[in-house]
């Protein structure tokens, strides 16, 4: 008994010594070659397909795939091959999948992920590996502000505050002077409300109350009650998509506020997932966003019809983000003659201009963020009896800094509970 124990301890000691000796010399590293086989470009596509953001992540993927189906996967003689991974909406999973895509699959470009926390989790790693990334949907302000990086371009969405600034201006122009806001209590919500608040107060409006609801709120009745008794003449409400939109609209209506309290919402509260579930309840609701599926434009029509034909439903903002990112990638790749080289790809994408993209006339600023129109929309029923958002007013050339000076803007801290744009 004692003998075998001693033998064992001895064995371990020898192993430890060998181990230490080995550690002194580094093992062979992977033969990483980022250029890949000639004639093919590999794209790593990260989005949540399981978990609470499953619907959004799936739609983002569908938008991307639709573009390639409509236009073919060959660009300037190079074939585009996409490898899809599920990040489950979890930052740790997203990082592991990003590692797999870059180290194992040797992709040359990363597209996604969707949720801001997952995007932030992978961005340090991805940029350190020298891989460019295109963001289709993430609206986190800082990705193109304080945490901007030359290898990252926000291709398919606007920042959280950028997409809501015009809402504040519109509210004032419509004659409203006192607003109450309700936004989710995390970064996206803070940035969304801040966008509205800054523009509304800049025009001369007053914010009477600010409400915040925690993520995962099941029950909006307490908030709706508060909105009703706040003494405001307009309510600005933002959600991050998912179930919140339908839950909010139903609560808003059943508590009798429909028609009594004017409402302006953000992009996602009345996005297609909400309208598929609560279309009739949401009819007539005004919202502000860069995407309007009911906009009268050939680019939008081609996308919406194609998507409807393939998936049987009207595309949401996430699908649009996936589609337009594919378009940006394809056009940038074409400019480069089929060679997807890190900084060159991002630079080529940044220099693109669109006369009429899915979002309208679009270009990118020097921080790799889009500049383009933002629409005030209204929920209406289309000729097929389905609900969608049509444009009632357009604000052109909206940048992520609104009318403020870029350097002054960046000196301020990011929006949070204590800095809400007031």
């Amino acid at each position, binding site marked *: 008994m004692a003998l*075998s124990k001693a033998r064992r301890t001895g064995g371990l000691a020898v192993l430890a010594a060998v181990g230490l000796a080995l550690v002194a010399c580094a*093992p062979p590293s992977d033969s990483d070659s980022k250029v890949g086989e000639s004639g093919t470009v590999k794209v790593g596509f990260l989005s949540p397909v399981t978990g609470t953001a499953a619907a959004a992540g799936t739609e983002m993927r569908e938008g991307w795939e639709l573009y390639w189906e409509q236009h073919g996967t060959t660009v300037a003689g190079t074939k585009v091959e996409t490898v899809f*991974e599920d990040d489950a909406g979890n930052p740790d999973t997203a990082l592991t999948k990003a590692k797999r895509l870059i*180290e194992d699959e040797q992709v040359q470009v990363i597209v996604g992920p969707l949720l*801001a*926390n997952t995007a*932030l989790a992978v961005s*340090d790693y991805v940029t350190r590996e020298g891989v460019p990334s295109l963001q289709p949907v993430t609206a986190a302000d800082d990705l193109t502000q304080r945490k901007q990086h030359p290898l990252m371009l926000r291709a398919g969405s606007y920042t959280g505050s950028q997409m809501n600034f015009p809402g504040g201006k519109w509210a004032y122009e419509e004659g409203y002077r006192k607003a109450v806001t309700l936004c989710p209590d995390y970064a996206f919500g803070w940035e969304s409300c801040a966008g509205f608040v800054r523009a509304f107060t800049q025009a001369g409006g007053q914010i009477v109350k600010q409400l915040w609801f925690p993520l995962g709120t099941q029950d909006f009745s307490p908030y709706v009650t508060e909105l009703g008794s706040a003494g405001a003449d307009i309510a600005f409400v933002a959600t991050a998509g998912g179930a919140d939109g339908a839950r909010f609209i139903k609560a808003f209506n059943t508590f009798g506020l429909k028609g009594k309290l004017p409402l302006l919402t953000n992009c996602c509260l009345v996005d297609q997932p909400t309208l598929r579930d609560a279309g009739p309840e949401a009819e007539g609701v005004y919202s502000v966003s860069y995407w309007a599926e009911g906009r009268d434009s050939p680019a939008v029509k081609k996308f919406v019809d194609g998507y409807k034909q393939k998936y049987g439903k009207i595309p949401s903002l996430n699908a649009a983000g996936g589609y337009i990112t594919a378009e940006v990638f394809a056009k940038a790749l074409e400019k480069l003659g089929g060679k997807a080289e890190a900084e060159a790809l991002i630079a080529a994408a940044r220099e693109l201009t669109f006369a009429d993209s899915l979002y309208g006339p679009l270009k990118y600023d020097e921080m790799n963020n889009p500049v383009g129109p933002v629409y005030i929309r209204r929920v209406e029923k289309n000729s097929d009896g389905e609900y969608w958002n049509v444009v009632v007013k357009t604000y052109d050339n909206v940048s992520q800094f609104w009318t403020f000076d870029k350097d002054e803007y960046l000196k301020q801290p990011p929006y*949070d509970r204590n800095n809400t744009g007031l």
Partner: protein
Amino acid sequence: MMRRLTVSRLAVVAGLALAIAVPYLGVRRYYISLLALVFIAALLAVSVNMLAGQMGLVSVGHAGIAASASYAVGWSVNQGHGYPTQLLLALAVTLVVSAVYALTSMRTSGIFFLMVTLALGMVVFGLAYRLSRVTGGENGLRGVWRPPGVSETWQFYYLCLAVLVLVMLALWVIQRSPFGLVLRGIRDSESRMSSLGYSVAAYKFFAIMISGLVAGAAGVLSVWHAEFVSPSSAGFLRSALTVIMVILGGVGTWLGPLVGAGVVVWTENALSTHLERWPTVLGLIFIIVVLFAPQGLVGTAAARLRHRRSRTRS
């Protein structure tokens, strides 16, 4: 008796040798980092297994302790502190959080212990979200670079392996010590032990503290592995998966947490690439293990080996 010890010991030593050799076998960097992830998950599972196996206390909130350590390191890095300060802070935070866990739960047992720890984990999760000035809220904290000397994937892999081996050895020693005997006595019958004069609550307290320290170590390695931390590290899913690893491997077995961690991490990461319905597969694996290998994979294998040996002897 001697033969059995040597055979299973040899298997462990062989496994260890293989683990040490992995980076030199031409394995891709991704798989090395995946293995490191398995070791870190195993470390957390070991901490849960210690309480579950030795004391019969299943904690479904241990990810909260690990995450607290992760956040301590993350916050410290963002304040510009050096590595020694980061570690000291992590240690301090781990001790405080473990003490809170211990004080709140030491007078409970069985299902109540499970529920209390679940709630504690959710409180940590909630704090991670709410104290956004400190914790970065939903986005968490980034830029948590590894210390020099372990920053390469293969170097970090060895760090995780080394920590896991050391902890497992330490716990093996504790298990064989008088302290371990008392813990198992408490598991078997609290009333008997207290009538024998042992302060059950005090022993529970220390056991939870030790387990908490291991969880804290897992937290530090975890934040260095990912180079960021976010609230999901403290969430219910992470704690539940850890418990699943322990039970899959075999509660109370020495190798169980490692085996369980391997299965779960592999399913979560490698299988999910090829199969969209991987949660269903994970669920089915659990069900099969529970029904046909109720002592867990390692536990059932060990029992089978013992059974076969006793039969050959007779």
